[in-house]
């Protein structure tokens, strides 16, 4: 028996309804267009997603071709692990090896593409105010967080990125076998001449952001957990803001599309896929 007036259904309903209008930092804004702080040049009708994901949080969403996705590291210590699937056929997904091999480069930055395992471009990086990202080291797992923080389960204070990604993917019917190698935004890994991974972990300036363009219809899964190379013994990660809005399908004269032979072919394969 509590003293909250919840002993009967009407009382319990009144108690639940009294929470209406509660605002915290780590929550979605619904509808997204009601945000008081829209991205520059974006009208509220075009907003698709406005959500702040807190320490250890995750989110997943379908985005249609042409949509823009902006991630903002609000306080300089976010680490956003991301999976990307073709929402029409999720068996097509981000391929980390093809992304670096086909583009002949190890680093994600403005102008680079995220490539699928089917020879198509899933997303383009259209702007990058951070320039410290990682495609090599992947998410933490439960074992790693158990070692570093004493716990790593989804029900602990120290959830690991892989199991957050699993939950985000599971909401779309995907499972453990679908957790492909991820991208980590905002925490950088550079490669030394001997192959060593050199971590660029910050903390960085506030409000660095990266903006991506969906080149196919996608499921994106995001988790905001400490980077696997982060050697701080405290579970340290700060909230990330996610904004997405409608945009045009990439035109044939797009500079990124035509920047390299490989890029043009990846876009040609996407355009062929959507010829229906």
């Amino acid at each position: 028996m509590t003293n909250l007036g919840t002993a009967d259904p009407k009382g319990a309903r009144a108690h639940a309804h009294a929470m209406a209008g509660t605002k915290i930092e780590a929550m979605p804004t619904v509808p997204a267009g009601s945000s008081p702080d829209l991205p520059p040049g974006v009208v509220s009708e075009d907003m698709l997603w406005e959500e702040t994901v807190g320490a250890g949080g995750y989110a997943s969403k379908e985005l249609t071709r042409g949509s823009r996705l902006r991630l903002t590291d609000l306080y300089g210590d976010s680490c956003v692990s991301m999976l990307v699937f073709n929402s029409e056929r999720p068996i097509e997904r981000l391929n980390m090896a093809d992304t670096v091999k086909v583009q002949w480069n190890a680093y994600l930055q403005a102008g680079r593409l995220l490539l699928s395992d089917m020879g198509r471009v899933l997303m383009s990086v259209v702007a990058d105010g951070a320039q410290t990202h990682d495609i090599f080291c992947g998410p933490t797992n439960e074992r790693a967080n158990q070692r570093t923080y004493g716990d790593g389960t989804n029900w602990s204070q120290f959830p690991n990125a892989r199991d957050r990604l699993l939950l985000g993917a599971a909401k779309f019917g995907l499972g453990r076998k679908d957790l492909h190698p991820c991208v980590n935004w905002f925490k950088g890994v550079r490669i030394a001449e001997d192959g060593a991974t050199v971590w660029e972990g910050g903390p960085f300036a506030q409000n660095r952001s990266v903006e991506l363009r969906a080149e196919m219809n996608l499921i994106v899964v995001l988790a905001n957990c400490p980077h696997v190379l982060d050697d701080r013994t405290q579970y340290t990660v700060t909230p990330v803001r996610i904004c997405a809005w409608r945009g045009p399908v990439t035109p044939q004269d797009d500079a990124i599309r035509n920047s390299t032979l490989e890029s043009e072919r990846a876009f040609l394969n996407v355009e062929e896929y959507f010829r229906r």
Partner: protein
Amino acid sequence: MSDSILADLHSPILLDQIVPARAAWEHVVRCGETLRIIDLEGNQAVDFLMYSLRDDAERYSVQDTIAAQRNLFLRSGSVLMSNEGNPMARICATSVAYHDTIGGACSCESNTLRYGHHTKAQHACVENFLTANARYGRGKRDIVSNINWFMNVPVEADGTLGIVDGISARGMYVDLHAQMDLIAVISNCPQINNPCNGFNPTPIRVIIAAGDPVVT
């Protein structure tokens, strides 16, 4: 028959096979056994995946392996990690300075980006991985980023990377000591558009021996 390549392996030799050029191969390797892969003619990329025999949703993870050793290259002593953070196998010996694990497998689809649409009909490692795995109910979801034994992918200071001329040679080998019961899957790479096979795919030899190699 004397065969010097077997001299430092424990008996019994459980398997000794030639994998033809361009072919797929798969076999169980039990915990404690050694899998030796021999580059018979030199500079033959061997694309390699492995799964836990007990639960094939646990499999080789390039990112867990790199993060655990804080280095891209696979060398003698490298521990190959699973997506669950468990050691799957250890490179207990190799005569090649380092091996690749960031270059992934060639596919018909990625070949269209890398070389042009005229390469789409060529055989590719993903085709081999799918063929070998399909017999056991595994499919495209199981084709994760792999290891490329005997393949050379340097990364320059500005991030430029690529598959370049190999550093392996005739008779060079790698020994893997299994740390759990494994399903090992190989695609003996058929790529002919870059130097990973010296533009000429060749056979390899695979040996499974009981126990770890004899220390000499």
